[in-house]
Structures are given as structure tokens and as C-alpha cells.
């Protein structure tokens, strides 16, 4: 689809542009929205996600922060408790751990422990995931440690349209949201074929993003591909891996893009597995106690009598994310195809 064919009111956007557009829209809609983090102000972010926002809204609304994740998180909580809607950035998900106490002990529990007297309507945006030769500390997928925390919402988009709509929903939501952005998808979709030329969002049919306000609901999964033979439950970059694997293997897989990891959309997942009777859970994060374990448990609990085969997990290995062995680590289409064949054999 060329640009002239885009629907009225939309523009071709990369995920970076769509995330920036979401913040632009929300900064314009409410004076309570503030954006801050390391390098997000004048410079516009190391990934350009906040480019131009400080110039447009001023230093009181969009500003640089010291290199202190716990400081960024704690200050955001204080601002939210005052009544603002902070959108704070942690430069890489790998560096969110210093903020973990503030997120798990504070943001997540402010409403509960104060019986709703104080709340934390805030968003922590953070680039996550591998496939970029990021090595150990620029590739991690720490979603499981947030999905385990009661009181926060964990969200991860897989395309520019969802990225903007989900970020707008997250900013509007009154619960704290961990908004994980697969940096591998910032400039274009990625199906795990690192040896092929990368397609940018500019040339991808899924790049039309409304320029104004819209939202994509939280707690609502998307069916990225309808299918009948098995269900792949996934999110983020591996949505594209699953789609490629299904096409290449000629297997009619139904691909569910969770979008909201937790709380999640039970019905879409369970209805699909009950229909296909086979399920694979796919994510980049390490396997043991990863979010996939919860997904497997849920499918087992809710679809036990429908299942024709054990639920498979295709994940990163239980190792720190390596540098040279990137493509041995990253769960690409070949591993997904192997798993699909095993699941169908049973």
C-alpha cells in the first residue's frame, strides 16, 4: 500500500513515531500529562521517541532526568499521587531493576494500601527485547517480574497502530502500567530472519496510524492470524516470528497477540485453544518461571479436556542474553516450526 492509499486522517508511522504521536496527543489533551526520563527532554530520547516534545510543550512538561531509575520511578509516583499523569521512561528494560522496589512495593500497592486514597496513574515506558546484538544488558525481556506483581498492568505492543493506541489507553488508565516496547520493532517488523533484509514500517502495510486521538483497549488480545490447526500465544517481536513460521511451514496456526500481558484477555486465548485444541506459548524471555509458565498453566486449567497435545513453550534459553550467540538464543521461526510439528504429531 502506498502512502496515497492510506485511510483519511492516518499517516505512515514507525513504532517510534507512533509512540511519540501518542505522547504528543496526550500532552495536548491534558495539562496533567508529563513526560520525563534520561535524555528524553532536549535530545528527544536515545530512540527518538520523545523528539520535539520538549520544544512543543516546554520544560515543565517534558524534561531530562538524572541517571537514577529509582529516582525516576519514585518521583513519578509522587507526581501521580499529587494528581499528575506521568509518563516516565526507563532507557532500557534491562535497567529497570533499580526501580523495582518503587514499582513493586509502591506504585503497585498505593491504591490497595491506602484504600484508594492515593493512586498511581502513571506509565513506565521501557524498550525491551533482543534481536539487535544488544548483549546482556540491552536485550532483556523482564515482563514476568512485573506480571507477578499484583497492582500493575503489563502491556507490550507489536506494531505502530497498537503501540499508539495502547500507550494512549495506558496513560488514561488509572492503574500503574509497565509499557514494554520491543526495540527490535521500533523501525520495522522482524520475523527472526536476521539474514534477510529488514523491512521498514514505511514499506509495511500495517503502518497506517491515525494522526489524532484513538485508543486500543487494555486487557484485549488481538488475533494476528486466524487459523485452525493450533494456537500460538505470544506478544511483541515474536508475534512476527509466529506469523512467518506459520506461512513458511504451511501450518494453519492461529496467532494470538496478547498485547496486555497481565491482566490478560482470557476469552480470546481460551476460545482459540478450545477451537484448535493445540497450543504453543512463545516469548523471547528466559523459560523458567517466565510468563509462558503462567500461560501454560492457564491453558491447562481452562482447556484441559480440549487439548490433544501437551502445551509447548518456545522461549529464550535459561541463560543471560549472549552477544555472539544472538541467533542461537533468539527463538526464531525454525524453532517455532519444530514445535508446531511436534504439537501436531501428538
Amino acid at each position, binding site marked *: 500500500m502506498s502512502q496515497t492509499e492510506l485511510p483519511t486522517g492516518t499517516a505512515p508511522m514507525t513504532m517510534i513515531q507512533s509512540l511519540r504521536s501518542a505522547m504528543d496527543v496526550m500532552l495536548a489533551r491534558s495539562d496533567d500529562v508529563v513526560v520525563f526520563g534520561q535524555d528524553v527532554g532536549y535530545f528527544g530520547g536515545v530512540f527518538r521517541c520523545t523528539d520535539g516534545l520538549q520544544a512543543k510543550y516546554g520544560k515543565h512538561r517534558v524534561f531530562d532526568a538524572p541517571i537514577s531509575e529509582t*529516582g525516576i520511578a519514585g518521583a513519578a509516583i*509522587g507526581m501521580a499521587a*499529587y494528581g499528575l499523569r506521568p509518563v516516565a521512561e526507563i532507557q532500557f528494560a534491562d535497567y529497570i531493576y533499580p526501580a523495582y522496589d518503587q514499582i513493586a512495593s509502591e506504585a503497585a500497592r498505593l*491504591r490497595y494500601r491506602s484504600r484508594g486514597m492515593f493512586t498511581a496513574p502513571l506509565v513506565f515506558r521501557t524498550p525491551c527485547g533482543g534481536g539487535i546484538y544488544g548483549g546482556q544488558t540491552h536485550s532483556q525481556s523482564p515482563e514476568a517480574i512485573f506480571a507477578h506483581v499484583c497492582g500493575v498492568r503489563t502491556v507490550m505492543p507489536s506494531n505502530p497502530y497498537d503501540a499508539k493506541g495502547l500507550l494512549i489507553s495506558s496513560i488514561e488508565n488509572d492503574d500503574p502500567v509497565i509499557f514494554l516496547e520491543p526495540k527490535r520493532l521500533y523501525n520495522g517488523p522482524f520475523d527472526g530472519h536476521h539474514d534477510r533484509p529488514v523491512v521498514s514500517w514505511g514499506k509495511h502495510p500495517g503502518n497506517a496510524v491515525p494522526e489524532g486521538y484513538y485508543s486500543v483497549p487494555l486487557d484485549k488480545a488481538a488475533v494476528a492470524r486466524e487459523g485452525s490447526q493450533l494456537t500460538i500465544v505470544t506478544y511483541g517481536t515474536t508475534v512476527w516470528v509466529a506469523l512467518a513460521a506459520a506461512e513458511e511451514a504451511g501450518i494453519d496456526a492461529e496467532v494470538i497477540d496478547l498485547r496486555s500481558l497481565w491482566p490478560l484477555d*482470557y476469552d480470546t486465548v481460551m476460545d482459540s485453544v478450545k477451537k484448535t485444541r493445540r497450543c504453543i506459548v512463545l516469548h523471547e524471555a528466559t523459560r523458567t518461571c517466565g510468563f509462558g509458565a503462567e500461560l501454560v498453566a492457564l491453558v491447562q486449567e481452562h482447556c484441559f479436556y480440549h487439548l490433544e497435545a501437551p502445551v509447548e513453550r518456545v522461549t529464550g534459553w535459561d541463560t543471560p542474553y549472549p552477544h555472539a550467540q544472538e541467533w542461537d538464543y533468539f527463538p526464531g521461526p525454525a524453532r517455532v516450526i519444530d514445535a508446531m510439528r511436534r504439537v501436531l504429531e501428538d
Partner: protein
Amino acid sequence: MSASSSLHLHVPEPSARPGQTTDFSYLKLSPAGAVAKPPLDVTAAQTAALADQLVRVLDDDGNAVGPWAEDIDDQLLLDAMHAMLKTRAYDARLVIAQRQKKTSFYIQCLGEEAIAIGQTLALRDGDMHFPTYRQQGILIAKGAPLVEMMCQVLSNAADPLKGRQLPIMYSYKEHGFFTISGNLTTQYIQAVGWAMASAIKGDTKIAAAWVGDGATAEGDFHAALTFAHVYRAPVILNVVNNQWAISTFQAIAGGENTTFAARGVGYGIPSLRVDGNDLLAVYAVSRWAAERARSNLGPTLVEWVTYRAGPHSTSDDPSKYRPADDAQRFPLGDPIERLKQHLVKRGLWSEERHEQTRAGYDAEISRALKEAETHGALGSELRPGPAEMFNDVYKDMPEHLRRQRQQLGA
């Protein structure tokens, strides 16, 4: 010393352990009235010397002296005395209630009453305190309902926090009292964020952050000072140095041969070290710091030098790690006794009135506890229902929590 001598790990110790006598000479004291009162727009560097001295107003005879002795309204001093007596009576009664197993846990602020109360009286309605678990004086000075506070401690059917929180972890937005967390120092940087928000919105409200000496060692203390300085946040950064973090002497927190006020100077924040048992000094310094914050002059750090006269909590026995008579020997005395001496001297108060007030609060607190107990106490049938457990985790209850509540049959 030869270059080849072996290295030695220094592990600070208090000067005295049980059965010994503490040498309080480690506390750098200044005579009442000796420390200057700087202009509001003082720089951090100009307060370097002050961070090593001790602002005091009341001398040993109960006279208010020096540049920090200001026109404090008589009624305000009487209000402070009332709040301090009430807080002490409240603490004493709830310690007994814990021993009677009416509650699982309690923390008193014995000996530290002047600090929270003095500062609260210097701030305005709308300002937000980010307290630790030892600033209950804020609530009492603000006139929070005693029965309701007790219901929280008893986790009973009338507990405003529905039994979700450990006793004393109060939350009172309407009294400018931020929800208390069990995780130390987290509130310190949150206070800075709240103050930044007030500045972002062009408001006139300020924040007061509270932390103890031990908890200054947490990373969030560093983050808070950095952010407060960077953004010139309208916040008062209070460090209550009561010399002890449970069993740990303040030297282990980094207080040996330095002061906590000096830390503030290093971050570029004007900092003062103040007699925490001198209500007049607490009020005057708090008013000064509040005025600085309200005038867009930024944060102030105040180290309040005091002594944790009681056990750390009802689960603690200080006789295992410090001399039993420590509090009596602490050179800054008792905040209530010192204010009493001053008020009596000024003809605003008397021994009789003191005793009468004290007894009156004992009776009021006992009556309040009786009333609170009509709503239940620990382990009684009267308690918040199990369905309350699932509310307020999120704004709207997600499906998995609805399922779990149903599973419990609640």
C-alpha cells in the same frame, strides 16, 4: 605506620553497651542561641558550618534565646504542648493494648514528639507530609480522629484501611499524611516528586519528606537529594536522627565523625542541624524551611538530633543492645519537659495544668480505645470481610480477581 602493615576493617560501635554508660560527647552540641539564622536565600555552601552545629532556642533554664527565638504565638505553643501530651498518651495506651494482644504490633515515638508536631504546626493545610512510621504526631497535631486511628491499629471492622495494612501504617489524605509503606525511604523521593508536581502546576503547596538516621543509607535517600537539588523542588527533607536504627547505632548508618546535615550540603542543598527536642527550634526552623520552599528557593535538609527513648517497636528489647538509662542521660533531655519549663516560666502553663492535661488525655485515649474496641480487635469476629481483600488492587477488579474472590466464597 609502615606501608606493609596489614589492613584493618573498621566496624563502628556505640560507646556503650548494656551495663555501661554512653559517652554522648560524640554529639556535637552548640549552646542555645549560638547558631546563626541565615537569610532565606542562603546557599548550600554557606550552611556548611551550620550543618556541623546545632540550632537550639531553649537554654537549660527554659529561656528562648538567640536568632531563632522568634515571635511564636502563645496559642501555638500551647497547641504543641497539647499535641505532644496527647501523642505520648496515645502511644502509651497502644503499647499496653499490644501487650493485651488487642493488636499485633505498635511503634511509639517516645522522645521524638516535638519534631513531627513542631513541623506540622509550621506547615499549612494542603501541604503533604511523607512520613515514616514514627510521625504519628502529625496526625494528632492535625486532629485526625483518634478512634479511627485506633481502629486501624486494631485492624477491626471500622478500620479505614479495611484490615489490609499492618498496624500504624496510616493513610490520611485529608490530613496531608501520605500512605505509610513498610519499605524504608521509598517515600523520600516520592515527596520530592510530589513537590515537583506542585511546582509543575504552579501551585503553592509544599511537601515534607521524613526519614530516620538508619534509612538514610538507602539508595532512595541519595535519589531524593539529587532530584530535590536538580529541580529545586519545594520540599523539606527531614532526617530524624534518633541515634538508633533498631539495634544499630547511627555510626553504622554513616554518622561517625560527620552529620547527616552535612550530606545535604554535599548535594547543594542548604542544610541545618537542629535540636529535635526543642519545640521552639523545631517550629522556627520548619517555618524557615517552609518559607524557603514557598518562595521558590528550593529544598532544605534538616537533621533533627533527638533520641529514640522507647524500644524500636513492640517486638524489640533495647536492653539487649544499649544501656537502660540512655534516654535519661541524653543531653538534649525530653521535649515535653523542656517545653513545659519554658511555658511555666512564661506564665502560660503550670505543673497543675500539666498534670490535669496529661490525666485528661489518658482518660480521653482510654475512652477512645474502648470505643474503637466495640468495632473489634485483633482476632475477633468483628473484622473487615474477606471480600475487602480483593478490592482496590486495581481501580476496577480484573477477571482473575473476580474468579479468586468467588473461589474463596467471599
